[in-house]
């Protein structure tokens, strides 16, 4: 895996204090809900002394707001955000590659944070807007980041490209004047196999120069 100390990025950390469940909580709940009767919707139980929502194990209603559009789904709680997008909604820009938070090809922006969609459950992603690579174009125009990737030939097979572009976008959204080093840091959780890194370095230089 690449550097873990990525800017604002840790898919394993608790996603949000006010909604959903953290991964540790989820593990605790799993052992409780294994014996539970399948129910539609959620119930609240006391786990480790705090109330937490219990979902499933059958299908539960899930509402996702992706690229400004609301989607109502019935999903087993174990379905990841990535699989919900790809298999249920056919939003396929985010790619499934490692499926365990090692490569970044599935990067989306949840709220204002880049996350690995393979390692977030769909039920955890309900209360915040989700932005995928599909939303970056303005009409027929590419986002300047996307244009920088085109200009500098920073994609070959293209399977990692969506993830790089979205992670890049997340860095600049939060740090509009990020230095090249800071952008590289923000992209260090993404991996390319074809070796398009030279083009990505050039795209970074192009964007940093713009002082977006």
């Amino acid at each position: 895996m690449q550097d873990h100390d990525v800017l604002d990025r840790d898919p394993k950390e608790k996603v949000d204090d006010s909604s959903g469940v953290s991964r540790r909580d989820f593990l605790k709940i799993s052992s409780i809900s294994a014996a539970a009767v399948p129910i539609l919707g959620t119930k609240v139980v006391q786990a480790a002394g705090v109330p937490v929502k219990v979902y499933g194990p059958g299908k539960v209603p899930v509402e996702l707001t992706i690229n400004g559009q609301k989607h109502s789904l019935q999903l087993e709680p174990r379905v990841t955000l990535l699989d919900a997008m790809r298999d249920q909604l056919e939003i396929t820009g985010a790619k499934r590659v490692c499926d365990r938070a090692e490569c970044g090809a599935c990067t989306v922006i949840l709220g204002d944070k880049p996350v690995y969609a393979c390692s977030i459950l769909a039920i955890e992603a309900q209360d915040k807007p989700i932005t995928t690579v599909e939303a970056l174009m303005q009409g027929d125009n590419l986002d300047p980041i996307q244009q920088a990737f085109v200009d500098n030939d920073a994609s070959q097979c293209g399977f990692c490209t969506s993830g790089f572009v979205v992670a890049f976008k997340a860095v600049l959204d939060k740090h509009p004047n990020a230095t090249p080093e800071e952008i590289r840091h923000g992209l260090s959780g993404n991996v390319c196999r074809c070796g398009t890194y030279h083009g990505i370095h050039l795209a970074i230089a192009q964007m940093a120069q713009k002082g977006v």
Partner: protein
Amino acid sequence: MPDYNWPDAEHRTLIGKRISRVDAPFKVSGRAKYAYDYHGSNMLFGKILRAPYAKAKIVSIDISAAEKMPGVKAVQIIQKAGTTAQWAGDEVVAVAAVDESTAEDAVRLIKVNYQPMPYLVSDAEPPAGAGEAPGPMSDDDIDDAVSNQTPDAQIVKYLQEHGVTFKVDEDFLNDMKGEGASEAVLAAIQKAEYHKGQAGGHSAYQKTAAQTSGDPDKAFAEAAVVSEGLYGAPVIVHCCLEPHGSVSEWTDKDHLFTHISTQNVSGIAAQMADPLGIEAANIRVHQDNMGGGFGSKFAADRWDIAAARLSRKAGGRPVRMMLERDAELKVAGARPSAYARVKVAATKEGTITGWQSQSWGTGGPGGGGMPPIPYVFGIPNQHKEHTAIRNNIGPARAWRAPNHPQAAVITMGALDDLAAKLNMDPLDLWLKNLEITGPRRDVYREELGIAADLMGWKEKWRPRGQNVSGSVARGLGLSIHTWGGRGHASDCDLTIHPDGSVDVKMGTQDIGTGTRTTIIIVAAETLGIPIEAINLYIGDTLYPPSGGSGGSTTPGGVSSSTRRAAVDAREALFAKVAPALNAQPDDLECTNGTVRVKSDPSRSLNWKQACSKIGAMPVTARGHNDQIAGKNHPDLTNSGVGGVGMADVEVDIETGVVKIKKMVAVQDCGLIIDLKTAESSCYGALAMGISYALFEEKVMDQATGRMLNPNMEFYRLAGLNDIPELVVHMMTGKGYDERGVIGLGEPPVISPGAAIANAVANAIGARVSFLPITPDKVLAALNQKDMDQKAGA
């Protein structure tokens, strides 16, 4: 006869320029669709139960519970009871269910009894005397070879050379057919010579015949200097980001439609037809984009056949069968290892006079062959022995420039050590011995000069271990390489419509190398219209067949067939337009969006007006490139390139960590169609080279026989911050352009590993024998150097 030749430099408006890849806007915006993205209606999800043992007899399989599970729509046994699983991860049963988690649950309900068998997953140096001379094949040997996915050509060659130990009958042939043996293999079994009672070939260690040329004993006896060393590269995996797999559906009872992640769109149907019992003509194959193959995606794999069979059982519903990441790394391809003990003889002036090598390596169950050593340098007076290790690590597949990177690590390492022993700058040793590199020697000379300038070699280079500052040692290394790259067979249809629109159709594929861009540039250049005016259709068996994208054969193939189609279509257009311009067809030219009279350019029509003269029916021309060199007149493609790689590294001698500071690649590839994507191939190859030089290894657990790192955390690929300044220089212009188009996928990935290994040796004054050059190996090499120095003092 129309002039198919590539236009002269002064007449090229697009060819050779830096043009952005035409599909990049789709890739950067998530609109590019891959096989993994295809979602058929009512699609089922396939999963595979894999053998947990490195080698085990499958005693019994009970699929009844899985079949009864709600949501499961089909179960297909891939390897029946009685067969032997040959590696951990070998496919046993496939399941299709309404969703992925149901399929996973169903897999867990399948009961398989295995009888574990002794296995080998090591590729360590064979024990002395372990190698067994190859002998005839038993029925079990053939069964293993077929079920091990040993390449057909290898099985056929072996059968032709060594025969069989038993009398072949119809039953056996039918069994092998059932196991998936090709017609070629079945024919070879039938024709194989029968050697009674000579069972052989059972050892894990197979020696190939020793090869001797010249008089190596004399050369070494008379040598002023003999350098000895140990060099090698381990098994690595392709780790394609889009895993292997497909989505298959039956559109009626005897028509299959498959979306597959492949480097070989036109070649897949023929591979699927036989096992599925339908005609290849009834199979449609489609792929828009492909997420990385690197040589591992030419076949319709077992899991693809299983998906088609599951779909048939499920009434034709689409079945998606994409490998999970761990399976992708365990079973979907690996680059064979190669290691060698080498001795090189030379005069005291540095003329290389002799080579001896004992090499070994594994390509998994098939064993594999000797890498082409000594590499590039045709050293006189050689003696070579090789032992192939047949083991249970899973099958090997072609990996960018098969066997060449390993051969470079071994050969260039040995020559670098020789240079150190001679107290020579390796650049001087290489230049001194270029005479024995064959027809590309002058190219190498020119390229070495350019690379040295770009690297600042003469200013930066220091003798071994003499560029240390504090805990940081700096070093330079180099390597040279070669490849063929002639264009493959390719057919292209180009149509000019009466409204001026143009479409190009070809059953090729763009595997990320810029094939779409290449085709469009050639078509647009030939017709004198902008690249935006070309509509390109590829990636489907509906279009004319074009070869698989392997061995750097695609650029030459597709550019030649496109050029021929475009020239012929242009001629047809000229014939229709000539009367309107009151000229002869051969006095017309297409340029800058017009069709005009060469002798009087004022008489011209714009492209749209010209095309309106075509009449009601569009004109279509078929262009063909033949695979065989002599059959194309004129020949628009060529074979044989040379290239140079140089590395500048920094090694922390306290931690053993290697940091690459700069890489240089200088490469020729004949006439370059798109300079931008050509350079990208080299930049990418340098990054890939850094990755396999420093990080990559398929690590096998000797205790369990399983791969220890089948994920992307412990199978580490280079990241953005591992990649330093990369400098690429493409050889173009006179002496290069007129050779025609030559492929570029393989060559630039060959030298980086060897160059980096040599740079590390130069920095620390000791050889790290085997890639990847990890900190532990660097520290061990430094320790050894200390001990040697103390022993010598």
